[in-house]
């Protein structure tokens, strides 16, 4: 894309944002004070009824809240009032742990499934059966067996990250070009060296695609999981602020969840670029 085209796209993006914010501000601004209301009654009802003010916060309110969070993201005033940075750190740590455990299991098992037609056929029914199960359906079982809500959330992340990585690794390993394997065979390359020097680099782009899908799903699932297990985390924060009826904080959380998800995805995209080879 040329620089001009990029600038044009940027201008359109900015315009869309401006129009959206303006419509939002207009939509939530008050319709003027209500007429002929008893002052005592008006005091009881609050600004929503008397000033025509919407309960929905405007972009300026949300902006103020975000600024407040940014100024002090790591405060800790007890179990129900922690800074958004602390909440995010908890979520990212859970996703990271569950995801890394899934990498440790999915990639070796994927290799096995991809290299052995027997194992591929033997494990296929289990993968097909367990893959479509919503990861949250595992939650009660995890809570019952693990008896720790934090670890249960990690387990749910593990389960949901597993399948895309496993399936992509198996597919990538199984579809390594015959000619590359023949090169290894004619050079009398041993099985371990072949796995690391031929199969792994050849399958790496496919494996990384699976890892990228997994991190996306894990970040989607952590919010729901933390709403269930409570305590800490961005998912718990959203639910807590809903209970507080603090819509500004809910909107702020949506934004923050989006930004962190985008960063995670971009990290994996960068890794994917590193292992992709042109043919």
């Amino acid at each position, binding site marked *: 894309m040329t620089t001009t085209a990029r600038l044009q796209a940027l201008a359109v993006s900015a315009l869309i944002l401006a129009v959206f914010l303006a419509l939002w501000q207009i939509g939530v601004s008050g319709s003027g004070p209500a007429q002929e209301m008893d002052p005592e009654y008006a005091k009881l009802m609050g600004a929503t009824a008397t000033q025509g003010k919407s309960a929905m916060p405007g972009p300026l309110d949300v902006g103020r809240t975000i600024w407040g969070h940014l100024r002090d993201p790591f405060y800790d005033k007890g179990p129900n009032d922690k800074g958004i940075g602390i909440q995010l750190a908890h979520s990212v740590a859970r996703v990271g742990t569950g995801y890394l455990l899934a990498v440790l299991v999915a990639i070796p098992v994927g290799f096995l499934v991809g290299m052995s037609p027997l194992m591929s056929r033997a494990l296929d029914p289990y993968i097909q059966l367990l893959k479509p199960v919503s990861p949250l359906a595992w939650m009660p079982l995890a809570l019952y067996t693990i008896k720790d809500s934090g670890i249960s959330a990690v387990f749910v992340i593990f389960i949901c990250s597993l399948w895309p990585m496993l399936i992509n690794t198996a597919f990538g390993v199984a579809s390594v*070009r015959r*000619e*590359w394997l*023949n*090169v290894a*065979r*004619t*050079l*009398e*390359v041993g099985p371990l060296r072949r796995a690391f*020097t*031929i199969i792994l*680099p*050849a399958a*790496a782009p496919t494996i990384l695609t699976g890892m990228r899908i997994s991190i996306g799903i894990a970040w989607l699932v952590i919010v729901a999981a933390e709403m269930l297990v409570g305590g800490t985390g961005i998912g718990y924060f959203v639910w807590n602020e809903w209970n507080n009826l603090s819509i500004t904080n809910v909107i702020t959380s949506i934004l923050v969840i989006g930004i962190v998800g985008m960063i995670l995805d971009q990290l994996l995209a960068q890794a994917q670029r590193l*292992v992709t*080879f*042109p*043919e």
Partner: protein
Amino acid sequence: MEDRLISIEGIAKRYPAAAGGQTTIFEDLWLRVGRGEFVCVIGHSGCGKTTVLNILAGLDAPSAGAVIVDGREISGPSLDRAVIFQGHALLPWKTVLGNVAYAVASRWPKASKAEIEARATRAIATVGLAGAEGKRPAELSGGMKQRVGIARALAIEPKILLMDEPFSALDALTRGTLQEEARRICRETGQTVYMITHDVDEAIYLADKIVLMTNGPGARIAEIVVNPLPADRRQGAIHHDPNYYALRNHLIDFLVSRSKTFRDDPPAGYDPRHPPVVRLDGGVAAPPLPSAAPKLRAVAT
């Protein structure tokens, strides 16, 4: 007795057919290749040329028979038999140097990194690619990729070089240059080569012996034609050689008609264990004949 390096002894390849029974691609194939010989195999698609090469490489196993290389029956791939693949088969995530060094490191696992690189660099220079060591296969033209494939095969100093139509995907000009270099390198190093080709002129230029295979299924080696052209032949001038057209016509005639009829109507006395060796002696070596037609003489080995 000649110094025999490869001996193909009665190999066959059969596949189960769709309606039960078996399809025989080829059977009772016997061939001997001497040390330092350049052998080209020509035949139509489906006659099993590539399967024979894969069996020689150890990538495929014959349904019957055996292949003896240097006095030992082969049982799988070996670094003694390097393959130059039709589709170059370079590892796209490695550089030119990396691809060649990978083969060198496989051949000499205990060699130091510097030694491996030195050998690889030398092999790359032999095929005229010095300076391109750091490039990746995707940055190279088809001809250059095939050169890297040749360098990779030569770098491990194999006893036998197996080539499966190595130049067929290249344009005519590149093909000519590469054929010339392949011939020069193989002559300089005394390399034994077993090569498959579709191209009659390529076989005439490169080969010491040309093996003719009949059509499949049930393919056989019909005959082995000894190339009568002088060893110091030059690519641009071979068509001036008095034996050139006799040889070329003989090969084309075989491909056009005899390759089809041979199986059902083999010549009298045909013995698959000893395919007839044909010499076309119409040229300088033999006394001139009254007619221009070359004399065909079958010699049993």
